[in-house]
């Protein structure tokens, strides 16, 4: 069934015990995972809504990934640690492996398309690459001048993209660790001199299915960062030239930012937006403005797309994970 964003509706509310942060679907489609402010990763069985906690981090958890076979969950903690978990374990899942991977928050993890490598990055400004099988470090990618906010592998597995607070997206060659080039998404970074803060960064990264486009999302017009005054912005880069070719914006959203981006297999871009409101914005390649915006009941934080292309997960401050269906109500 093709997706129809204009029919978007919240199909499922999945409650947790604390405000939720990042989320990810299990690629096999059975589960959805979300991290929470109580330092727990929650797993819900989508069919039964049964909830299972994964407890083991000593701080908040910035991101999670699940291997293609659905068997391994890797979580990135603000406690410097990556934890490997049995993703489908029935009860009380226990860490299978812990690696002290960084000095400080790990904000993002990304899996290679073959699920053999996992990349991690955060506040120590170094991207590190690990073997999924045994947690051994493969190599490091230093060079960022500010915190790493987002990581994404190119669909061909040859390149690793690392977006930072400065609005720079570095393209690394996975096999050699060489820096290939840098995409300039500077509008996604603000330094507000009066408040003396750096703000923004690469909050979302997505490749189009044909890898022709790389899109980076976050915020711009951060005139009052401490007071939540900014607007969402996604910048579309042509992969071949690394040139920014289009901005994707929203209207009437002075207190929002993009928290996550997903490219739909049918060729449109989805932005998970939060701040004062919670929104899902849908953009076509050629348009600056979204062709549809769906209002969520609460400010959105994380965003994930189910492998069926019909279900979108968003995490919320009101302790709920919501499944929005891109189809008419049954």
């Amino acid at each position, binding site marked *: 069934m093709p997706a129809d964003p204009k029919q978007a509706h919240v199909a499922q509310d999945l409650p947790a015990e604390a405000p939720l942060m990042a989320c990810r679907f299990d690629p096999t489609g059975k589960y959805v995972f979300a991290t929470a402010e109580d330092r727990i990763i929650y797993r819900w069985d989508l069919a039964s809504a049964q909830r299972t906690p994964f407890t083991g981090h000593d701080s908040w958890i910035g991101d999670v990934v699940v291997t293609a076979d659905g068997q391994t969950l890797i979580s990135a903690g603000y406690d410097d640690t990556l934890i490997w978990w049995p993703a489908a374990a029935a009860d009380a899942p226990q860490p299978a492996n812990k690696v002290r991977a960084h000095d400080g928050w790990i904000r993002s993890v990304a899996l290679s398309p073959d699920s053999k490598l996992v990349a991690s990055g955060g506040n120590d400004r170094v991207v590190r690459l690990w073997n999924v099988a045994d947690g051994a470090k493969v190599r490091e990618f230093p060079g960022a001048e500010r915190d790493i906010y987002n990581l994404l592998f190119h669909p061909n597995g040859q390149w690793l993209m690392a977006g930072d607070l400065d609005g720079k997206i570095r393209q690394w060659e996975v096999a050699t660790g060489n820096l290939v080039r840098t995409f300039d998404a500077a509008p996604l970074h603000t330094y507000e001199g009066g*408040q003396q803060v750096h703000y923004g960064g690469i909050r979302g990264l997505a490749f189009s299915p044909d890898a022709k486009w790389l899109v980076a999302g976050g915020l711009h017009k951060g005139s009052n960062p*401490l*007071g939540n005054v900014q607007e969402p912005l996604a910048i579309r880069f042509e992969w071949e030239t690394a040139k920014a070719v289009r901005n994707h914006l929203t209207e009437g959203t002075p207190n929002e930012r993009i928290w996550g981006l997903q490219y739909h297999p049918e060729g449109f871009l989805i932005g998970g937006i939060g701040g004062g409101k919670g929104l899902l914005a849908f953009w076509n390649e050629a348009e600056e403005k979204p062709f549809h915006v769906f209002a969520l009941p609460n400010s959105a934080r994380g965003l994930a797309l189910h492998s069926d292309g019909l279900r979108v997960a968003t995490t919320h401050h009101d302790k709920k994970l919501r499944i929005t269906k891109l189809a008419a109500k049954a």
Partner: protein
Amino acid sequence: MKPCEYSCRTAEHVVSRRRFVETLAGVGAAAVMPGFGMFNSAAMAAELTRTQKRMLVINMAGGLSQLESWDPKPGTATGGPFRAIPTSVPGLHISELLPKTAKVMHHLALIRGINTHEDDHGKGDYIMSTGRRKTPAQDYPVLGAVVAKSLDPGDSALPGHIIITPGGGGGRNADSAYLGPKFGSVVLGNGKPPQFSERQQGLAEEASSCANDLRRKVNDHFALRRRTAQTEAYTQSYEQGLELMKQREAFDITKEPAGDLERYGTHDFGRHCLLARRLIEKGITYVRVTHSNYDTHCENFNFHFEQVGEFDGPFATLVTDLHDRGLLDHTLIVVLSEFGRTPSINQLYGRDHWSKAWSICLGGAGVHRGAVIGATNATGTEVTERQVDGGHLFHTYLSALGIKSTGHFTVAGQKMPIADPAFEPIDELLT
């Protein structure tokens, strides 16, 4: 300036021997007043400068989160992502954002039970600056003015009340209320020397000297017929200005060893802390450094990571340097804000204004090292032990500096309590 008899003869104008000695020490006055031979020894002057009481305030503008600094609650619903780390004081933990400060906590103390009942920036700042609530009926002098008035030598060439701000051009604030403009703060915008403290370009030194000689002659002539405290203050301000111009180097951190700038950091706050050390060493009575901005309604944790991370190194270096140079015993250090931040975390990952249960850090002169006064509950939502208000803090600062906080200033014949009589010092914190 010539010694004289004041016509008003009020207590404010009587210069005690103790204060006179401090004056000599504070401004290196052996050179200024060569007739006072017994203090010609530079070593003696240096020793007097070293032992003079003074105060250094770090103002975490906007409202530092107590949970991301002095009173962490890791693993609770309100704790946020940061962990607590042990300090050099056994059993005392602070936020992991302060690893360097944690190593010097044995020089410092915490007050964790503050409830100022005021969540407005301006009113909160007023309470923390004056120890009183703002009323339309009366304006009160800020802490720096009170300390400068109480401790600073009367004829110091350098201002006794200095504020170092992250930006701005400088100038002088009208924040000394009835203590008069002499004790108003001099602002060093972005750490630059006081405004207009350099001889104007195009004005030759000889011409300037002639102009000042003429001014002195006219002043002296006028004083023969009519001499008042006001005319003396007028005359003194010019002489102070000239002396300040001579001592402009006091504000120049390039005179400090290059390695020190590296240790403090080349960013604004690092430079400003190094300048604060320099000014404290020069005998300035009260120095306040502003670090901005902590008003993190949005993305509190990202911004505290950024800001507290910047604060930690220079502050710990400053504490260590003052200790190593023998100045910490005589210098009261206070790290304060106008209030703290809410234990609850809002949907923007922010924390809002919160005056009900928050903390400050202090140490040095007159304070028990390693002490922790007061406590909050497990989630930081209430004070559970030894609740204090801004008035208690104000009394405590003054008492730590050896100023009788229950005393008064006499202003136009009227007694004005130095601190709010409704409060008292936190005696158990004081040595």
